[in-house]
């Protein structure tokens, strides 16, 4: 197993507040790794350190084989970050946003790249409109599309579905699955347990600045007493109702 992200003893404090207190984790190349945690657990801080936006106080982190502290430029060549809030330019159109990033990544044919991604994320019709007119789900999709330009081997998604409606959430999940299928390593943070369950090959729980559990879904399930067989009447969940009524999925 080759390792795409390796974190050892990472610590970070904001003045008195110790956000990360010795984080260790490894993400296998080509896998989807979910970092679970409640608000304020330090997920975003960890992602910011891994994407060279913040410096750690102690410990090491390597992304795609490069040290985030000493080889920041190489790390930036290897990653893309989709932050908690859609980092798109609202005054530009969707296509212009994509062309902008393609140019900054020094790709040969920025327009062709943009058109390809618009198609892939079902944004072709909206491509010429200003992003300010987009729905939350469309912005998220555009945001993720911008992150894929240049095919970075490692993608960080910080709460990719926060604030999205159920349909948009499914679209984002589909995009993440396609990414991993193409060999990209995905590290995503989330506070939705079902999201981790649906997507991740491996799940870690970050709590009070430390990783308290790390394993596959099957391994995590073994932490609890073995399953008992019970007869349960299956009630449709609200989500089932929603999709039945809306008539999609």
């Amino acid at each position, binding site marked *: 197993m080759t390792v795409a992200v390796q974190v050892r003893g990472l610590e970070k404090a904001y003045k008195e507040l110790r956000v990360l207190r010795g984080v260790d984790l490894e993400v296998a190349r080509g896998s989807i790794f979910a970092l679970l945690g409640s608000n304020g657990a330090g997920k975003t801080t960890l992602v910011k350190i891994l994407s060279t936006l913040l410096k750690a106080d102690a410990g090491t982190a390597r992304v795609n084989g490069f040290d985030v502290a000493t080889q920041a430029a190489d790390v930036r060549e290897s990653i893309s970050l989709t932050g908690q809030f859609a980092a798109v330019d609202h005054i530009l159109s969707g296509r212009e946003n994509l062309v902008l990033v393609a140019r*900054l990544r020094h790709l040969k044919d920025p327009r062709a790249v943009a058109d390809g991604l618009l198609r892939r994320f079902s944004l072709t019709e909206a491509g010429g409109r200003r992003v300010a007119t987009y729905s939350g789900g469309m912005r998220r999709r555009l945001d993720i599309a911008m992150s894929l330009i240049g095919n970075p081997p490692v993608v960080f998604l910080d709460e990719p579905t926060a604030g999205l409606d159920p349909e948009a959430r499914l679209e984002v999940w589909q995009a993440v699955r396609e990414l991993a299928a193409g060999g990209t390593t995905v590290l995503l943070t989330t506070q939705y347990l079902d999201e981790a369950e649906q997507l991740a090959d491996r799940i870690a729980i970050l709590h009070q600045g430390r990783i308290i559990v790390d394993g596959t879904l099957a391994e995590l399930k073994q932490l609890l007493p073995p399953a008992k067989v019970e007869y349960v009447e299956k009630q449709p969940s609200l989500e089932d109702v929603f999709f039945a009524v809306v008539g999609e999925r």
Partner: protein
Amino acid sequence: MATHFVSDTTVLTGRTLRHVTRSLDTIITTAITPIAMMLLFVYVFGGAIDTGSVSYVDYMLPGILLITIASGISYTAFRLFGDMQAGIFERFQSMPIARSGVLWAHVLTSLVANLLSLVVVVGVALVMGFRSGAGVLAWLAVAGVLALFTLALTWIAVIPGLSAKSIDGASAFSYPLIFLPFISSAFVPTDTMPGPVRAFAENQPVTAIVNAIRALFTQQPVGADLWTALAWCVGILVVAYVCANLVYRRRIGA
């Protein structure tokens, strides 16, 4: 990474220029206050101010141009602050691009936007009777001084743009800059001012810059004023540039 500085800055400047062309109202709002002041001073106060042989609109236009720039640069702080809030700033920082290009794009855009506003203001001044026999070289010299002044003030504007906590804080810094021309030779000759005020007025940057531009417009010898003006502009530019980059480095944790 330095190899990409020019191409990255060009791409990023193209982006911020689109912000300007898609909100042309910012050009108008930048120009409207200076134009209102110009109307007020020329048609209300101007008749009572003795500026010798020079017509009052000719006399006060240089000061109005500086006020235009001082109000125009607050949009740089505004746009920069907007980028930081929107998260697109973090996206750029996590990409393999020349990091200083992000700031330079805003600075170059400020130059273009202010130039547009200045053209509007000069246009109105022409309608109000402003005339200058200045030749091409003198006009180029005026443009050069104004560009240098814009650069210096824009780098000042970058500091609140990067460090402000609110959108109001990001643009409030420009009020004192807009006020500065009033205590200078921009609207009235300094020799009627009481001692300490006059001492301040005659030794602050606006007076030297205004006098230099006025001399260029009226084809008088510019003399030492031009060099004093250039020295002030370059001095402010260097200090503001260094401070802005310190703030920037702290902000991006480099």
